[in-house]
């Protein structure tokens, strides 16, 4: 299966495109992360962070 994609990696013409895509994906990953974190309501964080504290009686 790898051999099928081999050309795309070995070909120097594609190198720049690959690098650009990698960079964009990398940036997109963090942008998406920040977006998700901002979008969530305050109460969510409050209730989540208290999960360990109300988890048992002892």
């Amino acid at each position, binding site marked *: 299966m*790898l*051999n099928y*994609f*081999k050309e795309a*990696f*070995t070909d120097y013409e594609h190198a720049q495109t690959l690098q650009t895509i*990698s960079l964009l*994906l990398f940036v997109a*990953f*963090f942008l998406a*992360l*920040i977006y*998700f*974190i901002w*979008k*969530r*309501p305050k109460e*969510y*964080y409050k209730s*989540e*962070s*208290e*999960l*360990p*504290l109300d*988890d*048992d*009686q*002892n």
Partner: protein
Amino acid sequence: MQMQTFKYDNKIVKYFLYATIFWAIMAFTFGVLVATLKFFPELPDYIFGSDDGSIRSLFGGGIEGLAATNGKMGFGRLRMIHTTFAVFAFVGNGFFLGAYYSMQRLLKTRMGSDLMSWIHFWGWQLFIALSLVSFLYGFNTSKEYAEHEWPLDILIAVVWIIFGANMLKTIYKRRVRHLYVAIWFYLGTWTAVAMLHIFNNLEIPISWSLAAPKSYSLYAGVQDALVQWWYGHNAVAFVLTTPILGLMYYFVPKAANRPVFSYKLSIIHFWSLIFVYIWAGPHHLLYTSLPAWVQAVGTGFSIMLLAPSWGGMLNGLLTLRGAWDRVREEPVLKFFVVAITCYGMATFEGPMLATKTLNKIGHFTDWVPAHVHVGTLGWNGFMIFGMIYWLAPKLFNTKLASNKLANAHFWIATLGILFWVIPMYVAGWTQGLMWQQFNEDGTLKYGNFLQTVTILKDWLYPMRAFGGALYLTGGVLLVINVWRTIRKGSYIPNEEAEAPALVKISSARKKGEGAHTWLERMPTLLTILSFVAVAIGGAVEIIPTIVVKSNVPTIASVTPYTPLELEGRDLFIREGCNACHTQMIRPFRDEVKRYGEYSKPGEYVYDHPFLWGSQRSGPDLHREGGKNPDAWHYKHMWDPRDTSPGSIMPRYPWLIFNKLDRSKTDIKMKTMVKLGVPYQEEDFDSITPSMNKQALAIEQSIFEADSKLKERYEKEAKEKGDNFVPLRDREIVALISYLQRLGTDISTEQTETTTIIGTGK
């Protein structure tokens, strides 16, 4: 809402508690032992026997006593036992202890399956016990932290998958809608370790023999090195970091009785850490024969790692805001504070060591183990100690037997860390800088490698072992304290709890529900996404390095090892020589001057596995071939201090007594052919004559150099008659043939005329 009653499984938690403590003591004991061997290499001689009149051995035996151990007390083997105990046994069991306790409570349910819990527990202990036995007997693959031979690799994989299935099963029957961040860390750990373990241990066994397992890595040379350090670095990330962070996010809020400082930060911490960590592996291979672009990626991502790591550290420390007064009295919090601080120090140091400037000095020296010890014993160890002091009283429904004793443990262990870490730093810098010094006339200031070792063993190495002994003493105090706590407490194997049932809702995203909120109630998807996050980095580095031919230019003059050399190489692996000797000359003026022409990627194409090593307690061996006569090697293995006064190398008399086992040479070569090593038909036809010829030449050269030795062997032949094994048939000769071969495929003169074949297509 309907309340449901259920029972937490405390018995499995108790067993993991005992296992953690037991293996902690074992790991520390072996640590002190290997640290001692570094300045007292004659220790095995004093125990088992010696031919040196000044050494009176414990049992009064001669050198035969030492030889009869067959290397069971060799540094190389004990070191891998120590690391397996520390990483997989102590920290591994500690993680399971915390995970089994916290998951049940965070999810308000019993573990998914009791049977799976117990298979996991006993399977893991079996793996560790078998590792001890197999390493003592010399069965190892040489790949650091993955030295386990193929049957153990399979066992680890099976147990690990059962652990993961059990976790997921627990998650599916939970009574809490969302997964707390600690559980993400557990899931992320599970996914990443499964991936790393499987890919790094792809190997072909030479036979299906379980009694004498032996396999060769699927990858060779540069590629094997990349995969290994992609694994090695991420073993640090996903065995020693993410699981412990999961524990931190649960137990620090618990002990401080306040929620984590910022839950938002913990989410950023999780995703960015698992995403970035996986890329950083190549920083273990800076300046080596690895393609430069992979090295650059490794450095870049290592520096980026500072951000999520310190975010997490601050998150942990700031959780204690407003509770600092309690840190003074509460030993649990003290341990946590130092643990998190050590996490911060280690994750600052890591990126620094990953820069080329500092790596040049620190790589191959004691600086790296110093760094690892801050992480494993400062960060992981203290986290686990704190957790145990908090958890043991809870489990046994009582108070900790003695806060005083716990405080004493804290201080003794902290001092212990300082006592070994500081000497190791100093040793690292001293050695790294000494290697680089030149005289004005252009010669090396410390031309003899030994000078850079003997200076370390007078004070620095003994101090380091003393620090380890202190840390071990602290561990003993823990045992006493926990034992006393257990005695006065009472434990309930199945603790009753109740919680409202979780209303079933559709897995589809609800209207107005945030995407990540939805994601968190979808554990499978969360696991898959964490897999994607960890797989990207690996894929970007590893796939091109393996498929792009031009990354490893072939050198025409590099040929496969002869049958005898191949056997010698396996002896090198068996004894764990690569624990102290590297086979990688970096392209620096001082290294080229000291060892010879720097190492080329094409030289390693037949090295299954690669043996670059990671530390130089002894000199690099990549250009060892032809440097010293055969007779020198013979004497050096017999007693390193005879040829190299002050050497810290162990003696290897059994290599000289043992007959070489040639019965597997044929299948070893056949396995190599499967891996792409071009042995020809005629190579197989001529195995015995080829081995005999090469061995005889070595025997003759040794006897020529030392006629007394020749007389001794002739005398022995007369005495033993038919039982006599000629020198040429003994293990030592195979090892010498391998050492004499190292780095001789190319010489400086030859390189210029060598045609490089393969143009990248």
